[in-house]
């Protein structure tokens, strides 16, 4: 046995031996624990996995794009039903609650998120999203599990007082596995969890390194984790009260428990929740509306609960799904497996708005699926650094390489820097022929001028000039310019942000 493994086992045993014979912990957890800022910065990430492959095109609808309606004659969401967010993008009508989050600037949306060579298998693509791997790379642990092993470098010998991660459910996700095993506790309800572990006895046999011995060591570890954490979880759940009524759905109940644990003072930095039912191969309109309603209602309740309990500054929720769905509807009023899709990031520290343009429905892959615009790991990178406060080096080690961050937050948790009051984020497509979308972001209401300069410094086109509100904006430019390289310049209050653009 490796020394490290031995020490870990001893550490875990120390925890379970603190239990009396009837399972009542001898050590009380009554004193309020201070946040250990060396481990976590007090920030909390709630992940919400949408199982089955969410149909992005019917979630966030490009309602001015005729191609969308051509490709989806039966299941396209009618323009008049769309909950418009801007002049060309709107939400599924089942997600009305999200519009308020959007208007309050708490809903960040990233368009066209995916990865190169998107896999269309539920299972393989889920593994890719959970592990943070490339399409052709097999990893056996999760990006969150690896992140936790950096946030808690001594966790093997110095068992954290609170779980490092909590998964609401019953089958532990790969997401929370690290190279040295499970980093989380999994339960459906804090009370029954506590009740069930009572009566387990301490286990101090040294594990054997045989095939069966390693399975036994695994079982013992889970057993110890359960007994170690059952009482603190129950205590915090009892202490933290929900201040809103959650919808009586599985995801509603899960988020209610998460909110009560956070309000009760549990320091756990990562939670995983799950909603199923997105594999909409047939008759999807009703089924998809139902799951999206559940999602939207649960998340809006959760956000409002956090704001009442004063925890909203600390918490960010991110949704994800293994893939989006085929652009063209199938014959059963449903959609088959596809590729890129939008992703939601919600919270008070989130700088609300839409990053990225509407999906390009012309330029598809050979399967008729969307090409991705942002790699999913750009969002992971952004959250790890700007929310959870990990540094660049650690983030790169966790994700295997460096990814460009997105402007998802008002300021960086890692550096403390606020982001510029204005930022030209993206010109899309680029290069372009006749038209392109210019996406930019304003941190406050200012007078801006967005224009195109040639390389001689001549302003050849003014796209927008005037006062605009804070948030994300997009302007469509449509005019034929001479072929060549230009600079797009966004300026206001003496600040500038520019991007090189190419006309072909």
């Amino acid at each position, binding site marked *: 046995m490796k020394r490290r493994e031995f020490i870990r086992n001893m550490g875990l045993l120390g925890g379970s031996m603190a239990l009396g014979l009837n399972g009542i912990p001898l050590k009380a957890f009554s004193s309020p624990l201070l946040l250990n800022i060396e481990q976590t910065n007090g920030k909390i990430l709630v992940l919400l996995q949408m*199982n089955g492959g969410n149909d992005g095109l019917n979630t966030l609808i490009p309602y001015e794009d005729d191609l969308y309606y051509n490709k989806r004659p039966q299941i396209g969401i009618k323009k008049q039903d769309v909950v418009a967010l801007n002049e060309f993008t709107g939400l599924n009508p089942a997600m009305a609650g999200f519009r308020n989050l959007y208007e309050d600037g708490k809903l960040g949306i990233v368009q066209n998120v995916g990865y190169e060579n998107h896999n*269309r*298998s*539920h*299972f*393989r693509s889920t593994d890719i999203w959970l592990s943070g791997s490339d399409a052709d790379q097999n990893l056996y642990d999760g990006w969150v599990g690896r992140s936790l092993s950096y946030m808690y470098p001594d966790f093997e010998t110095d068992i954290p007082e609170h779980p490092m991660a909590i*998964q609401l*459910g*019953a*089958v*532990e996700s790969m997401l929370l596995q690290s190279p040295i095993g499970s980093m*989380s*506790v*999994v*339960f*459906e309800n804090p009370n*029954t*969890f506590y*009740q*069930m*572990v009572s*009566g*387990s*006895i301490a*286990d*101090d*046999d040294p594990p054997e390194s*045989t*095939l*069966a011995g390693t*399975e*036994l060591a*695994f*079982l*013992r570890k*889970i*057993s110890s*984790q*359960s007994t170690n*954490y*059952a009482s603190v979880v129950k205590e915090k759940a009892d202490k933290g009260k929900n201040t809103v009524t959650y919808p009586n759905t599985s995801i509603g109940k899960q988020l209610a428990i998460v909110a009560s644990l956070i309000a009760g003072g549990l320091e756990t930095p990562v939670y995983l929740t799950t909603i199923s039912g997105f594999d909409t*191969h*047939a008759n999807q309109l009703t089924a998809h509306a139902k799951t999206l309603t559940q999602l939207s209602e649960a998340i809006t309740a959760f956000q409002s609960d956090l704001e009442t309990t004063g925890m909203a500054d600390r918490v960010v929720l991110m949704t994800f799904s293994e893939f989006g769905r085929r652009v063209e509807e*199938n*014959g*059963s009023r*449903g959609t*088959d*497996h596809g590729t890129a899709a939008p992703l939601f990031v919600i919270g008070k520290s989130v700088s609300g708005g839409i990053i990225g343009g509407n999906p390009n429905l012309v330029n598809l892959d050979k*399967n008729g699926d969307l090409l991705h615009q942002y790699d999913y790991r750009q969002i992971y990178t952004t959250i790890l650094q700007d929310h959870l406060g990990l540094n660049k080096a650690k983030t790169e080690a966790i994700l295997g390489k460096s990814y460009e961050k997105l402007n998802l937050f008002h300021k960086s948790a890692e550096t403390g820097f606020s982001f510029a009051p204005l930022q030209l984020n993206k010109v899309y497509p680029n290069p372009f022929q006749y038209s392109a979308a210019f996406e930019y972001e304003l941190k406050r209401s200012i007078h801006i001028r967005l224009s195109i300069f040639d390389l001689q410094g001549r302003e050849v086109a003014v796209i927008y000039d005037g006062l605009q509100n804070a948030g994300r904006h997009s302007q469509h430019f449509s005019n034929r310019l001479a072929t060549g390289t230009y600079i797009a310049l966004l300026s206001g209050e003496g600040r500038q942000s520019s991007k090189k653009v190419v006309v072909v």
Partner: protein
Amino acid sequence: MAIWNVTSAQHLLSRCLFGYTSRDITLALSYTKNDYVNKVLLAPVTAPAPPGNWINEEPALADSATRATRQKDLVNWWIQLMLQDNSLQEKMVLFWHNHFVSEMIKVAHPQHMYWQNHLFRTHAFGNFRTLTKAVTTNAAMLIYLDGISNTKNKPNENYARELLELFTLGIGNYTDTDVKEAARALTGWQVDKLRPFLNPGKFDNTSKTFLGKTENYNHDTLIDAIFKSPKTAEHICTKLYKEFICSKTDAPFIKQMATVLLDADYEIKPLLAFMLNSDHFYDTRFIGSKIKSPVDLLVGTLKAFEVSNPEYNYLADVLRLLQQNLFNPPNVRGWEGQRKWISSSTFPNRQALTDSYINGKRLNGQSIKFQIDGLAYARTYTSCNNAIVFVNEVSTQLVRYPLSANKKNLLLNILLEGTTPTEWSTNSPMAVTRLKNFFKALMRLPEYQLC
């Protein structure tokens, strides 16, 4: 050659049956190993009485309450078959259910799920290609993976993709184009009441290019093409290996299994006989290396303690909690097994289950209609009044992973409750309570979860 003794018989039975008693071991050892495998475990399939006459009733006739009752009856019926089975039959039915997954929650009508289960039983040790063909046009499957929506003009890829990825070739052995082409070959199937049928007008009667060959494939010739690839044999052999031998695969042995299967033209019985008679199967390192499935734990414990009249509704409830909701696997991949069964949620639930068998009560204190009689069970051991020998023999009989001296000592202390071994007797007034505590503690051990 592997030795055929109590240890190897226990290993074989713990992997092939849902639990066993010491009498089952004695019976097995009265045969040679080969005879026991071929004549008892692989005995010809028996068809049980169905759960009710409703299995032939037109699905649309039942209201939702009747349907819900029948769904429950179906689950209970199957648990009972597992409890009564002394062969490999029901284990293989469960294997096929977990391979060719359909979920009752989507299929809705229990009739369809019954007939699919019946199909798995008929072909339990039959031909894998024949079974795959039957499943492809099975009503429950046509509904579950949207085969009924897959038509010439509007193909639906759902079944085709899972057929290639999960049921036959395995991921990486086909392209996305193969999926589309396979979907076209499978167009036109519909379900009328209970009966699946091919609607020629909805079948794409043109040529398809599949796995590099172009012809006018249909549901039958497509499956033949899939089964020409040895990848299909390797894929199913890997799955059988993980189910019966070890979750960590052994490529050379799986190659041997695939050769046996291909030589037998995809007949499953010779493959199972080969596997269960092989020296590899009895390699001692595999003993106790498998994490029991919820059914193994739940039914196996009842069988070991000879409880023959349990409360099936309760068992079905617990199976759901332990994440093996029969007729409703979590998704089309099915239950992954081994460590996936265990989390800090399911592990304590497993302990609560075995406690409840001893207590005769659910976790919430509500009574259940059966209980393990620890005293009667203890008295089936001639050693029952010799505490030290008794603890030893019971552990050997009930726990596949050998308990350390330390653990046995701990169990002995629970049994004796501070008294000395000489004071122990099953006739002492405290014996019933002490045996309860002893059996609960024994089944709460992580070792008890291994087989």
